[in-house]
Every structure is written in C-alpha cells, then in structure tokens.
C-alpha cells in the first residue's frame, strides 16, 4: 500500500469564495474524518497579487488505490454525489491529479491521528509550490532535485534558508501529465522571500557549478505558486 496525494486546483466564483471555503471546512474535512480512507491536509489560497484570482489549492491524503476508488465511486454515484454537485456551483471548474511521493520526499506517509479535523485555528503560513516540466528524463530530473537542490538546501544554516522542502511528488501514472514533478515548500524566511522577489540573481548563481545553471541541463520550464494556508488548514 502506498499513500496517494490528491492535488486539486479550484477556480472559484469570486462571489462564492466564502461558501466554498465553508464547504471544505464544514463539509469535506469532517466528512473524510468519519472514515479511514482519506484526510484533507492543506487548504491554501493562491496569494492575491501573485497569480490568478480566486484560486484555491487543496491536497488530500488517501490511504491507497482501493481507498481512492471508494471515494471516486461515492462521488460518482454514492453519498457524495449531491454534495460535490453543490460545490460545483461555487466554482468554475477544478483540475485534479493524483500524486505519489518521490523516493527522497520527506513526506511519504501521513499518520491520520496527527491531522486535525476540527477546524482549529492557527497562524497563516506561506508555501511555494514549484511545478517543473523537464526535458530530461523524469527520473533524472527528480534525482537532480535531490542531489543539487534539496540536499544543499537542507545543509545550509537555518538562517540562510528561505524554505523547508516538506514534500516532493510526481504524477501517478495516468492521472494527469506524465512528465511533471512538484516541490511543496514552506517559506521559512519572509525576508529571504522578499529579497528573492525584489533582486536579480547574483552573478555567482549564474555561473557553471551553481544550481541555476546546472539545472538547465534538465529543465527550463517551471511555475511557482505562492500559496497561503487558511487559519484552519489542517497542516500549515
């Protein structure tokens, strides 16, 4: 059994934003908590000013393939059919993909007992979600992220780190685009993020031997999203 991670991007009707959030907080999260198949992990808004309007990203952990199939059948013709049709009236559409953790991802399994389901509140946090599309092989790209990105980042002094790589995923076969991988990274230094946003890359990061240059052997297309968790997102 391998844990699956359901990643969804919801394009909301702006006027229904609060209703949508409430549907997840008061509906989806506690509904999943009544069983052992899945848990909502993150509910995050694409930070206004950094990308598309009224976009929400959710990540739900699912125990395994059989659990996902049960959930899919409930949505198609079971007790969740009407609920999800109601949620559809609050969004233009939703795009989903089912992810597997890559071999070096810190997040592999989630102990459901550690995931709050009662909507308790906490401070907000900011994540940088990077999605990359390599021209190298996908396996080589994932290995490169480990060897020349994640490991050096984890060895840097805490005060030098901009983020904490909590998970790395690839698309489970057939559920979406094949050649794609995702880094799920919590911003740990807002000062460093602001520096990144407001400064050019320093010359030393544009020379061979730097990550920015060496990684070009694998890809030149990626997209970063700044995602802010809600006050009640189970993980943050």
């Amino acid at each position, binding site marked *: 059994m391998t844990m699956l991670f359901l990643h969804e991007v919801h394009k909301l009707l702006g006027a229904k934003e609060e209703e949508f959030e409430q549907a997840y907080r008061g509906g989806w999260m506690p509904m999943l908590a009544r069983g052992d198949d899945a848990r909502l992990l993150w509910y995050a808004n694409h930070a206004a000013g950094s990308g598309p309007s009224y976009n929400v990203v959710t990540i739900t952990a699912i125990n395994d393939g059989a659990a996902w199939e049960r959930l899919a059948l409930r949505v198609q013709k079971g007790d969740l059919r009407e609920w999800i049709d109601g949620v559809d009236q609050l969004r233009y559409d939703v795009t989903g993909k089912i992810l597997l953790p890559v071999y070096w991802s810190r997040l592999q399994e989630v102990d459901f007992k550690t995931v709050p389901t009662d909507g308790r509140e906490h401070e907000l946090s900011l994540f940088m979600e990077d999605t990359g599309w390599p021209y190298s092989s996908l396996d080589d790209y994932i290995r490169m992220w480990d060897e020349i990105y994640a490991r050096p980042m984890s060895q840097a002094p805490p005060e030098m780190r901009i983020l904490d790589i909590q998970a790395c995923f690839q698309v489970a*076969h057939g559920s979406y685009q094949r050649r794609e991988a995702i880094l799920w990274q919590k911003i740990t230094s807002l000062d460093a993020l602001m520096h990144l946003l407001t400064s050019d890359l320093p010359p030393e990061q544009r020379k061979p031997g730097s990550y920015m240059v060496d990684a070009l052997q694998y890809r030149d297309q990626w997209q970063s999203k700044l995602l802010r968790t809600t006050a009640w997102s189970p993980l943050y």
Partner: protein
Amino acid sequence: MLFLHEVHKVDGRKADDFEQAFRKGLMPALAKGDDARLLWYTNHAMGSGASYNVVTITAVKDGAAWERLALSFQKGSLQGWVRDVDGLRHDARGKLLLPLHWSPMQEVDWRAVPTDGREHPLSLYMEDTMWPYREQYLRYIDTSGAAYSKSLEVADPFIKIEAGFQPAFGSHLRREVVLMQKILKLDQLRHLLTHEIPIAQRRPGGWMHEALVLRDQWESRLLRTSAWSPLY
C-alpha cells in the same frame, strides 16, 4: 472498472518506434497479469486535427490494480519501459475514467481482449468530449443516455456508442463526458463533414437544439485504430 485514457504527443521522427513500444512492449507486459489490458491504440486521423497524436485506452480492474500499475511505472518493472517511451514522445496527458451509468461498456472480460497483436481492418472512431454547463453536469449525464444514445438505436445507425465515461474523482477535469463512438457508415461521415446540420435538428425537439440547454462546448476527434489495436 477504471479506464485510463492517454493522449500521447509523439515525436514524429519516432512514431513507428512508439507504436512498436506499445505493440511489443506494454500490451504483452500487461497481458502477463490480471490488473489491466490495453483496449484501443488509435491515431488521430491526419487531416482532422493534431499531428502525431496517439490516443490509447487501457482498462484497469480497480483502484488497487491501478495503484500497483502506477507503482510499477514509478519504480517497478515498467519504469524502464516508460523512460524509453518518454524518449519517443514530447509528453503524455492522462485521465482516469469511470463508465457512465448508461455506458454499454461497464466491465471488460480479459478473455475477449486479444494481446497477441493480431491484425484486422482499420476502423474509425469519433471520440466526443463534452464540457457541460456547471449547473447541468449531472443532468447532462442522464440526458445524453436517455436522449442522445437512444436516438442512435435505429436499424442502420451511423455510429454506435461503445462506451461513455466521466473523469474519476481527482483526475483531470471534474466536469467532462467522453463518448467513444465507432463510425459504422463512412458515407454518412462524409455527408456530416460536407453539409450543414439540417434545420429540423436545430429546432425544438431536435437533440442539437435541446442539448444547448445542457452544453455548448465539445470537441470531436476522428481516431483511426491501428491494424493490431486489441479492440477496433
């Protein structure tokens, strides 16, 4: 039963190698187990859409079987195969589908699916993908079964719906319907391509008129099966 639908954007210089990889590689590899079977291998007919596009549909027994398949592609026996195939295509986009409640195809008997690459005449499918209005999705699923599919149940039909699907939760778009329709009469396809839709079909009572309450966006693809595609 789940149905894995993939659109492969093939490197035109390597199209033959790509086809061989499925015929000699994936199809027999799946046939060694009971989890999945390749059903259709089709080329998007040249002159009707995107170049070097291949659409494959693979039946997968259930969620647990799909998980095993996904792991074999990630780090198991098919990891090398898919790595090689990635070198023959620009990319692939997949979606996991469930049969609509009225779909003629619900389950597939593996014994009825050839896996030896036997050859047969080519056939042409019209694959229609629809995106119903937000508030009409569930109604569209029901009505397309009750009205559209029934309208094709005539003595000498132009096309036959072999399967109807919707995306399984969490894969691809939420609000979509896919119909896999075999074209039985090529002369009627020619007529359809070269004539306007008759007025009668655009008036109240005609499907083209009535269905506008449910959707106005769809895309048709003309897909030609290969000579060895298991189903055709």
